[in-house]
């Protein structure tokens, strides 16, 4: 598959020239594939065979069959023949080999896959270095802060570091275990803050944050004396309300910086509708959630006013207005306890939906459904 590669329409002559030039490479590639396949068919598991797969995989890192063969070689090698380097050494060697490939092909699933396989083999041997992996993935994300594989791999490494750490913690002491996990998750939380600060559009970071927040909160709850070790973080996490306030402040800056940024608004929606926060708000004081909604509505309306002033035809800002509809819907629900989508539709909200049809025509169909009560304007669960 070709992605982001500009099309070059080669002339017939250029095509022929390229084919001519390719010939030698094709022959080499085919001969090498043939060689490796026959070794595989003969179930040869030798150091030489390993080297052949290296060369071939460098030419084509997506040749999954060869990765499979390489794994079979690695597990079946007679390491006693080369006493200096045992299985663990070769697995670590492969991690280096993979790194060199990832630099060139950071989005190839098969390379990432082989990397996790090597690591699990090292786990079996008790010789894995997750901290090093952590360094690797941090470096990768520094270079492409939204690489899908990179974030997934980071979560994978963190999970394993957690697993390893909890094994080390005293098995009987629940609080001890939470403390170990907390440290890891707090660092992850800070990492998302750092990524968001660099670029508020980094939805990958916002996403991770939404996963970390409940986790950290519950871990703090499980501690015997939560505020000792991480006082400043505990300030944020002492209650769902304090988390919410902290996050709303952060997201407010994001909204002001770029009112057209999808990530910011999606995260705000989560904050305003997450059960963890709502329950805590209403527990502390009746109507607290409602007044928070009204405060947020005010902030968004203020911003929308600024945006309107900037627009050549004085249009509302699309995301502001979508959010206004959502918050007004939530307020309606809180005040009237309405559950039927149709009952939430005040004239005011209907007007907003009609405006949205004009300023966001791509999604006209959705707004029409909402106007007719066929689709809800707020989350239904």
């Amino acid at each position: 598959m070709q992605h982001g590669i500009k099309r070059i329409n080669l002339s017939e002559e250029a095509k022929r020239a390229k084919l001519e030039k390719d010939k030698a490479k094709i022959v080499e590639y085919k001969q090498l594939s043939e060689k490796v396949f026959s070794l595989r068919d003969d179930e040869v598991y030798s150091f030489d065979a390993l080297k052949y797969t290296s060369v071939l995989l460098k030419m084509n890192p997506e040749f999954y069959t060869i990765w499979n063969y390489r794994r079979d070689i690695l597990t079946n090698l007679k390491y006693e023949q080369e006493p200096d380097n045992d299985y663990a050494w070769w697995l670590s060697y492969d991690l280096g080999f993979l790194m060199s490939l990832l630099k060139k092909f950071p989005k190839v699933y098969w390379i990432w896959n082989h990397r996790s396989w090597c690591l699990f083999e090292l786990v079996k041997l008790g010789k894995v270095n997750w901290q090093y992996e952590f360094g690797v993935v941090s470096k990768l994300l520094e270079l492409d802060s939204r690489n899908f594989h990179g974030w997934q791999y980071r979560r994978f490494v963190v999970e394993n570091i957690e697993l390893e750490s909890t094994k080390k913690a005293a098995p009987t002491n629940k609080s001890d275990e939470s403390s170990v996990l907390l440290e890891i998750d707090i660092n992850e939380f800070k990492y998302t803050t750092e990524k968001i600060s660099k670029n508020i559009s980094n939805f990958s970071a916002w996403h991770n944050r939404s996963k970390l927040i409940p986790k950290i909160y519950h871990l703090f709850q499980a501690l015997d004396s939560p505020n000792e070790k991480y006082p400043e973080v505990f300030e944020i996490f002492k209650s769902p309300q304090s988390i919410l306030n902290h996050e709303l402040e952060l997201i407010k800056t994001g909204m002001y910086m770029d009112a057209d940024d999808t990530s910011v608004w999606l995260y705000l929606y989560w904050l305003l509708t997450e059960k963890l926060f709502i329950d805590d708000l209403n527990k502390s004081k009746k109507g607290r959630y409602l007044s928070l909604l009204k405060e947020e509505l005010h902030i968004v309306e203020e911003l929308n006013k600024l945006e309107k002033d900037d627009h050549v035809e004085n249009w509302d800002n699309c995301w502001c207005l979508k959010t206004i509809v959502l918050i007004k819907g939530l307020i309606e629900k809180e005040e009237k306890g309405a559950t039927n989508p149709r009952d939430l539709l005040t004239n005011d909200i209907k007007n907003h939906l009609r405006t949205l049809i004009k300023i966001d025509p791509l999604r006209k169909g959705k707004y029409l459904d909402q106007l007719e009560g066929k689709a809800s304007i707020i989350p239904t669960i």
Partner: protein
Amino acid sequence: MTDTEVEILPLLREKHINYIIEQDSHRSYEYWLSEHLRMNGLYWGVTALLIMKSLDESLPRSEVIDFVFSCWDSKAGGFGAFPRHDAHLLSTLSALQILKIYDTELTILGSEKREQVVAFVKGLQLPSGCFQGDRFGEVDTRFVYNGLSSLSLLDELTPEIVDPAVKFIMECQNFDGSFGMLPGAESHAAQVFTCVGALAIADKLHLIEDDTKLGSWLSERQVLPSGGFNGRPEKLPDVCYSWWVLSSLSILNKKHWVDLEKLEAFILTCQDSKDGGIGDRPDNQTDIYHTCFGLAGLSLIDHEKYNFTEIDPVYCMPTEVTKTFKKWKS
């Protein structure tokens, strides 16, 4: 943001047909490097030709079927991407889809292979409910879809398989209503297709309680000025999401939540007007993958307008084939 007239370029049907037929003829170095995708490539090519109603006259049936069987990996009991390549769930689903197109009863497979391939696919399911791609452990909601779809094609679904798989999928749903590749992973449009598609196959769509949220997330994938779909917030549009997003919306009965005309225009601007084929974005290199999903997108938008075969959003196969399936009822 003003409603401007959308210019819709003509569809270059003949050029695309030629482009697909010619795939095998230009044997550059890159072509040889893509053997590991050949079974998928064949499925994309066959599907694209089917959509354009020219499969039979363009590709000799026997050659296609021979190729598929030449990729049979008897050791594992599944299909590889190319002769001598290892069996993998990805290529196995493609192989089954191709065979099903030619033979809805799959008698062509023979009982022995059939048993083996069923065992192969079932054997890839893990206790978590997820499937791995092959014996080496890579897991991802892609493989759940592949597993369920394969077994559905073979009419071999059982509650023991479906229930844990569905549970796993639901663990992949995020606060934005959308789905990621694993529990905890960021939402991604292609992953939505695999999850929603798998739920549809498993007859469990009702588990998506708030389809407005998911539908909204999907509809927000359409961006201006191009009118194309992106795969995640704040990313660039790409033709292949025309399929992943629109099929998901279609399964949720929310196709009208996006501007189909603008999407149509976007797909058509990604055609190579000289050599045929479709690329990810205008003026970019074409390939069979984007050609297939671009055309599949057009079929979902309006198959009658282009005299296309109607496509089933759940299986990405013609409805005339999928209507013969015995659908799983939970």
